[in-house]
């Protein structure tokens, strides 16, 4: 069942949002490529949760407030956003850039979170294990390097791109550079504060992630007390797209543990 598209306003910022399903609220924070469509992965989650998928400020057709200048600003925005759920705790899930934002939210305030899931998150740096240089890759490389299964890449590359979609991709690329260009894909302070995350946490990584090597997963596991690490074989940087069943199942398993 496809999600419904709405607008959502937090303070004076208006963003595009998709939502669907019923159950406890789950907030999904998307990655650098933005929020093109309601994914099969969201359908799987919506059997257990009410899923909220906002498009970050600065991305796509959401507002682009001038004050949003770094990942910390995005995290503070989502703390305001989460306040909107009232006293109901939420399950927070973030992919890549969105995983980084989710971790930045969690180190600031965990009291409104029921669980945290990070899917191939950016945010920390291990010396000697650099991220792939997605800003230098051409369009085809960028897509191929996201997936283990090149049939998915072929399918994406085969789709025509309208001018409107091209503009949105460019907007997302600008927003991504703003947040992730320098220092490249990490906040030097973040890893010092990950011990403050006190909710059940799941770290999911594609074994064949060409953007952030899967060796990062173990480091995240060490830094977040009591967290569980799942490495998915034959999977690239986007487990939610490439292995939606396993990824959703792991999130539901984490949820079951919190009840």
């Amino acid at each position, binding site marked *: 069942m496809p999600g419904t598209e709405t607008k959502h306003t937090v303070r004076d910022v208006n963003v595009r949002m998709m939502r669907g399903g019923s159950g406890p609220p789950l907030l999904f924070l998307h990655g650098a490529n933005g929020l093109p469509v309601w994914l099969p992965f969201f359908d799987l989650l919506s059997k257990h949760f009410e899923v909220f998928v906002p498009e970050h400020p600065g991305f796509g057709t959401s507002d682009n407030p001038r004050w949003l200048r770094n990942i910390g600003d995005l995290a503070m925005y989502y703390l305001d956003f989460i306040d909107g759920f009232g006293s109901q705790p939420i399950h927070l899930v973030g992919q890549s850039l969105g995983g980084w934002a989710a971790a930045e939210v969690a180190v600031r305030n965990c009291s409104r979170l029921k669980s945290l899931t990070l899917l191939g998150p950016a945010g920390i740096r291990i010396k000697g294990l650099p991220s792939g240089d997605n*800003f*230098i*890759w*051409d369009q085809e490389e960028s897509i191929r390097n996201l997936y283990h299964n090149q049939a998915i890449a072929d399918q994406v590359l085969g789709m025509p791109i309208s*001018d409107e979609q*091209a*503009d949105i991709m*460019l*907007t997302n*690329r*600008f927003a*991504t*550079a*703003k947040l992730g*260009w*320098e220092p*490249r894909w990490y906040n030097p302070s973040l890893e010092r504060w990950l011990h403050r995350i006190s909710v059940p946490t799941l770290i999911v990584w594609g074994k064949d992630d060409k953007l952030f090597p899967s060796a990062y997963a173990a480091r995240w596991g060490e830094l977040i007390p009591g967290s569980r690490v799942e490495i998915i074989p034959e999977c690239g940087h986007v487990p939610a797209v490439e292995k939606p069943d396993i990824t959703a199942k792991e999130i539901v398993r984490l949820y079951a543990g919190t009840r």
Partner: protein
Amino acid sequence: MQFTFFHLMPYRPLDMVERHKHRAGWVVLPNTLYDPVKGAEEYQSYIDQLVYAEKLGFDVIAVNEHHQTAYGLMPAPNLIAANLIARTTKAKIAIIGRALPLVNNPMNIAEEFAMLDNLSKGRIITGFVRGIGNEYHATGINPFYSHERYHEAHDLIVQAWTKPGPFSFEGEHYNFRYVNLWPRPYQSPHPPIWIPSMGSSETVKWAAAPERKYPFLVTFSSRELVARYLNVYRDQAKAYGYEASPDQLGWASPVYVADTDERARKEAKEGVETLFNDFLAVPFQMLLPPGYMSLESMKNTMRMRKALGARKRLTFEELAESGTVVVGSPKTVRDQLSRLRDETRAHKLITMLQFGTLPDDLTRRNMEMFASEVMPHLKN
């Protein structure tokens, strides 16, 4: 006209087969392809050419800044300028330019230019640029903040040159409790600032503002685009309520003169084609990182690019045809340059008389012929 002899200092001994095993002649081109023994000879030849240009009567000799590339061997152009100061007496020395956003302390740029201005007793011309997109990959500086950093660094440098110190500077990217330049620049109020540009409308608007009136130099563009961009500048000046003086307008172009058209074209071909295809060309993702251009300009550029299709090697013939390079007999070159001068009323001509792999002997003959057969006819 005012004539500038400009040098990029390319690394000519580059192995072009190896070069094309990499996505660009920039940033990712392994520096094992640079041979210091050959490179040192290149520096010597090029500095000799710049010094020779003064003897031949050029008004200005000029260098610029590029990083991690065989395209230009001057990551620190002020070092070359210092050398030129010691070896020349009357030519102006232009550093066009330094890439302001790429540094974390623009005070260093203000200080170095002020030192050069003192050392040369006021012969320095400065240029303020943002660097090519590639250089945001080379330095790690976030291109999203390129424009902001440029404007802030510009304000800081000009204030450091003109406002009595110490004072404090409070910016978004640059903050200094003490701005107090020792030495102050030799020229008053400060050395000239030229703005080389590919013609972005944002830059025109900013450079032409009455409080700046910075000379605007269109680089690497066809005859048609040079004329169009200089007209945009002139119109912008009118919109600000003044008439742009010819001194505010200029363009930069590779130029090659020989006794006949045929000979000139034959001798210039390889240098021109290597300049554009082997040294300068880079993939789109490197040339225009996100934020280097405004989002609106970038959207338009992407659409034009989609319409143009795949990039191919530029040929000498099409570059000559469009007037991006000016090549021919003295008469041909005089005619082409004077036509564009008359059309644009631009007073500044930035010549690149060495380009790509063009060897020393041809470069010198080109310089001599340009100085004797072309320059006098265009002087006034």
